[in-house]
C-alpha cells in the first residue's frame, strides 16, 4: 500500500504533508483566497512584497486572513526584472519576520514572463550565501537546473508554460531529465491550467506543483482548489505505484484460455 501520510514533501529540512503550493494573487477578495487555500489543503502559499498603503490604513491585511503561524508564507520576487531588485525584495521579506524560505523569480520579458536565468543564477548564489533557503523559479532547462543546484538552490521550480497561461506542461522530456539528475525538490511552477496538468507533473515524478491563476481565476475557485488537491494526490499515488510499460499493440485484459 502506498502510504501517502508518510510521504512528506521535504523542503530545506521542513516537512509538509501537502504537495500542492498555491499562490495568493488574483482572488476577488482575501476571504475568497483564504477559503480556497483551506480547501486546497496547501501548507505553503506564495506572497508578494509590496508597499503598505499609507493613505488607507483600514485596508485588510493578508496576515489577518492567512495566519503565517499555520501556513508557511513563501515570499516571492514577482515583478523583479533584475538581481538587484530581487535581492532587495527578499532581504525586506526576511526582515518582516524572519522568513528565510523564499521563492526567487527574476523575470526577463514583460510579455512572455520567462525567467532571466543569468540574473536568477547570480541571485541564487548571493541568497544562498546570505543563509536564505531559495526555491528557484526557472526555465525547463536541465543544464540551468544543474547550475542552480550547484549554486545552492533548495528547490528547483521549472515552469510548465508561461506564467498565467494555463497551457500545461509543454516539455515533459526536459522535466523528466531534470527529475533524473536532481535529488532536490522539483516543483512545477507556473503555467498549469487544469487539474490533469498537476496530475501529469506528479506522474512525471515531480515533488509538487505551484498553482495560482488556475485556481484563483476559475469560474468556481473553491471547487477548483479541491480538484487540484485531488489531482496532486492522484498523480503522486500513480507515480509511487509504478505504471505499466507502454506497448504498441493490444494486450487483452481477459484470459484467452477457456474461450467458448
Amino acid at each position, binding site marked *: 500500500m502506498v502510504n501517502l501520510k508518510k510521504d512528506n514533501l521535504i523542503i530545506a529540512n521542513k516537512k509538509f504533508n501537502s504537495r500542492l503550493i498555491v499562490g495568493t494573487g488574483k482572488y476577488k477578495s482575501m476571504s475568497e483566497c483564504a477559503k480556497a487555500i483551506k480547501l486546497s489543503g496547501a501548507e505553503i502559499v*506564495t506572497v508578494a512584497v509590496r508597499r503598505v498603503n499609507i493613505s488607507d490604513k483600514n485596508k485588510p491585511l493578508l496576515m489577518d486572513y492567512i495566519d503565517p503561524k499555520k501556513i508557511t508564507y513563501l515570499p516571492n520576487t514577482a515583478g523583479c526584472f533584475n538581481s538587484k531588485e530581487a535581492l532587495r525584495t527578499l532581504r525586506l521579506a526576511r526582515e518582516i519576520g524572519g522568513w528565510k524560505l523564499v521563492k526567487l523569480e527574476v523575470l526577463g520579458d514583460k510579455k512572455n514572463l520567462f525567467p532571466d536565468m543569468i540574473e536568477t543564477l547570480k541571485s541564487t548564489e548571493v541568497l544562498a550565501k546570505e543563509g536564505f533557503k531559495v526555491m528557484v523559479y526557472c526555465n525547463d532547462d536541465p543544464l540551468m537546473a544543474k547550475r542552480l543546484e550547484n549554486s545552492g538552490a533548495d528547490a528547483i521550480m521549472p515552469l510548465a508554460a508561461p506564467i498565467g497561461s494555463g497551457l500545461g506542461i509543454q516539455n515533459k522530456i526536459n522535466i523528466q531529465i531534470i527529475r533524473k539528475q536532481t535529488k532536490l525538490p522539483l516543483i512545477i511552477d507556473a503555467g498549469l491550467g487544469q487539474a490533469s496538468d498537476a496530475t501529469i507533473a506528479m506522474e512525471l515524478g515531480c515533488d509538487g506543483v505551484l498553482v495560482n491563476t488556475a485556481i484563483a481565476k476559475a469560474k468556481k475557485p473553491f471547487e477548483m482548489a479541491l480538484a487540484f488537491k485531488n489531482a496532486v494526490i492522484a498523480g503522486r499515488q500513480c507515480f509511487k505505484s509504478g505504471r505499466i510499460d507502454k506497448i504498441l499493440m493490444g494486450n487483452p485484459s481477459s484470459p484467452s484460455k477457456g474461450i467458448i
Partner: protein
Amino acid sequence: MKKVKKIKIKINGKIKSITQDSNLSLVLKNLKIPLNKVAIELNEEIIDKKKINKIKLKKNDKIEVVHFIGGG
C-alpha cells in the same frame, strides 16, 4: 512661541511634511503602521525595527514600508 521647523520626506513614494528631527518611530506610529507585519527601508537600507526610535529623520529622507500581499 518657538517656530517648529518642517522638513519634507518621502514615504512609499508620497511626499510628507514632518517636524524636523522627528524620529522614525513616531512617524510610523502616526501612520498606524503595524510594525510586526512590515519591513522598513531608509534611503534603500534596511532598518532594524528595534532601533527605529533612535533614528532621526532628515530632509529628503526616503522611507519604504512594505508588507506581504497576495501574489503568485
